[in-house]
């Protein structure tokens, strides 16, 4: 019997790297050799992680990958948290890749849906972020990872700065399992400001032809916040934040939560809530938080990623943000998602559709957008055992072994701006599942995890319902004149109000006539800049040129 080798992966990696040695100067390869390098280092059928998160894209490497010879590199199994750029999908049309595991496909949602339907692409799973990261260590261990760094020193140490995001979790999955770590660098320097990824974990560095793509995804211009959103924000502050004594929170990316951020220093202050609620945040550094930070509401913020324009402000507020010795923020998407799922009192988000049972999804007809971080933040890990007042406040009183629950709040207007009802009998996602032949209906947040729904009509305290039938009636009561809402009648509403399962604005002391834009701590981007003492630098598309 021949002796089995236990180092086959290790040997294969070494032999691949030896094959490209002539192109390399230490760990460095010339920009113009990048295509040849990928053709030599990536084998047909390899599992390849291409870094692309909400904001930061390894855009140079994705372009190079799309240019390789499909005769040499084909049928790759791509693993990407976010499918954002056209070439992310082009590679499936040319045969370079054939299978995809992903989490989010916002900008490419229509095309990806078609490609799955017509068989151009085979989908493994649509994951939550944490599921995807976790599986990099289990059954999706990558052969090659392609990531982006701001600066790289001569030893290959990476500086990823405010936009570190998911680089560490990706790189670690390859570096310690004989995967090949290939980095595109904005800049090669003698000394990095700090080491975000040790050079020891890095195999190849390529100077990119231009800096990686970076989007200001979480910036919301207060000018676009409506009075309806302000009303809902006031209701949420009174009927949820105050009522449940919420201390830690994640806000989704919409205008509803931006409104809340801008109401804390005004409406929250009037209610005497300052110092009592939401000191601790897991959230991207959204500019609309600046007034709440400056007026002393927010004590700490950990972030999944950076936000364009916030760099200098953050550098001057290290008491609030996670900031390195070099003065720039450190983000970490995997830890952020972990905190969001496991450490927070509450998640507040928005969605495009909610069904009669309370399941919600952003996947609508023909658009497979994926689900982003909401399923992690917006779910209740049943193993938790928090003692915080908010978590405990959802504990049923009639069960001696009962436990609390994370608050998962969906804030929606009953009709979208397209005048389509948000409350529906059946989610479009059910149909999308059939068309795209998915294992699971792409629901973003499940009914069982949803504890509150806020609409302009009122708040449904779903955690207080004791049957699915009662849950449905509570949802109908706040669903306005949508087909779902029209099933509600005045007698049911009166009963739900009497039992505290539904609250209308007047039940929690919210005056609709106070829901005015003047109640926002900042009404324009300029106001936010003023609050920041000039430290916030809005991206061009958010500047007014008047």
């Amino acid at each position: 019997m021949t002796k089995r080798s236990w180092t086959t992966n290790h040997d294969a990696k070494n032999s691949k790297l030896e094959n490209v040695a002539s192109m390399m100067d230490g760990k460095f390869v010339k920009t113009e050799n990048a295509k040849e390098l990928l053709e030599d280092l990536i084998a047909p059928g390899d599992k390849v992680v291409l870094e692309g998160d909400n904001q930061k894209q390894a855009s140079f490497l994705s372009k190079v990958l799309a240019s390789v010879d499909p005769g040499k590199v084909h049928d790759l199994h791509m693993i990407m948290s976010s499918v954002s750029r056209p070439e992310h999908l082009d590679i499936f049309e040319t045969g370079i890749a054939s299978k995809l595991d992903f989490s989010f496909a916002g900008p490419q949602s229509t095309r990806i849906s078609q490609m799955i339907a017509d068989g151009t692409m085979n989908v493994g799973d649509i994951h939550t972020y944490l599921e995807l990261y976790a599986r990099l260590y289990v059954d999706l261990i990558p052969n090659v990872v392609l990531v982006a760094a701001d600066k790289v020193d001569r030893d290959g140490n990476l500086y990823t700065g405010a936009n570190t995001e998911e680089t560490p979790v990706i790189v670690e999955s390859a570096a310690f399992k004989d995967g090949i770590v290939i980095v595109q660098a904005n800049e090669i320097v003698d000394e990095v400001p700090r080491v975000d990824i040790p050079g020891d974990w890095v195999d190849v560095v390529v100077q990119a032809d231009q800096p990686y793509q970076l989007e200001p995804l979480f910036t919301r211009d207060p000018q676009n916040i409506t009075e309806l959103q302000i009303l809902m924000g006031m209701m949420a502050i009174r009927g949820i934040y105050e009522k449940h004594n919420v201390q830690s929170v994640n806000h989704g990316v919409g205008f509803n939560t931006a409104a809340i951020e801008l109401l804390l220093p005004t409406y929250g202050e009037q209610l005497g809530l300052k110092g009592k609620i939401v000191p601790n945040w897991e959230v991207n550094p959204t500019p609309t938080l600046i007034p709440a930070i400056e007026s002393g509401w927010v004590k700490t913020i950990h972030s999944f990623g950076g936000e364009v324009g916030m760099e200098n402000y953050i550098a001057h507020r290290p008491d609030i943000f996670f900031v390195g010795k070099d003065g720039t923020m450190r983000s970490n998407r995997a830890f952020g998602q972990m905190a969001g799922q496991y450490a927070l009192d509450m998640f507040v988000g928005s969605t495009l559709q909610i069904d009669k049972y309370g399941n919600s999804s952003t996947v609508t007809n023909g658009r497979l957008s994926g689900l982003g971080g909401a399923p992690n933040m917006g779910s209740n890990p049943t193993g938790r055992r928090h003692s915080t007042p908010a978590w405990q406040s959802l504990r049923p009183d009639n069960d001696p072994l009962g436990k609390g629950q994370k608050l998962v709040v969906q804030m929606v207007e009953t009709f979208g701006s397209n005048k389509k009802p948000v409350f529906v009998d059946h989610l479009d996602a059910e149909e999308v599942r059939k068309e795209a032949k998915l294992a699971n209906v792409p629901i973003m947040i499940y009914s069982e995890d949803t504890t509150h729904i806020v609409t302009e009509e009122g708040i449904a305290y779903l955690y207080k319902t004791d049957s699915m039938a009662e849950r449905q009636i509570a949802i109908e009561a706040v669903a306005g004149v949508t087909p779902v809402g029209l099933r509600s009648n005045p007698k049911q509403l009166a009963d739900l109000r009497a039992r505290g399962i539904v609250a209308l604005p007047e039940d929690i002391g919210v005056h609709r006539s106070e829901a005015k834009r003047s109640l926002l701590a900042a009404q324009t981007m300029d106001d936010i800049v003023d609050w920041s003492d000039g430290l916030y630098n809005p991206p061009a598309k958010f500047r007014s040129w008047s």
Partner: protein
Amino acid sequence: MEKLHFSFDTKEPIQKPVHVGVVASGDLEVIFRPTTDTKSDINIVTGSDGFKEVWQNVLDRFFARYPIQANIEINDFGSTPGVVNLRLTQAMEALKDEK
């Protein structure tokens, strides 16, 4: 543009006129005027055609909750039902404040 008219049998006459909201994109103005009639007449001018049934539903709900007797004029520029209901209920709050 579409002109709509609705009528409801009501019994709580208002005493003073009220004006809420502005005609701006996604918004509307709502004007309540006292009436000597025994019903409420609602005249709507809307920039979004084809939503008569939704208006009917919004107004059914509103008058079930607040059976005020008034002449109501609505000038709408593409509001969602949520915004319509906000303006109507804000007008109710304004009526109460004036009492």
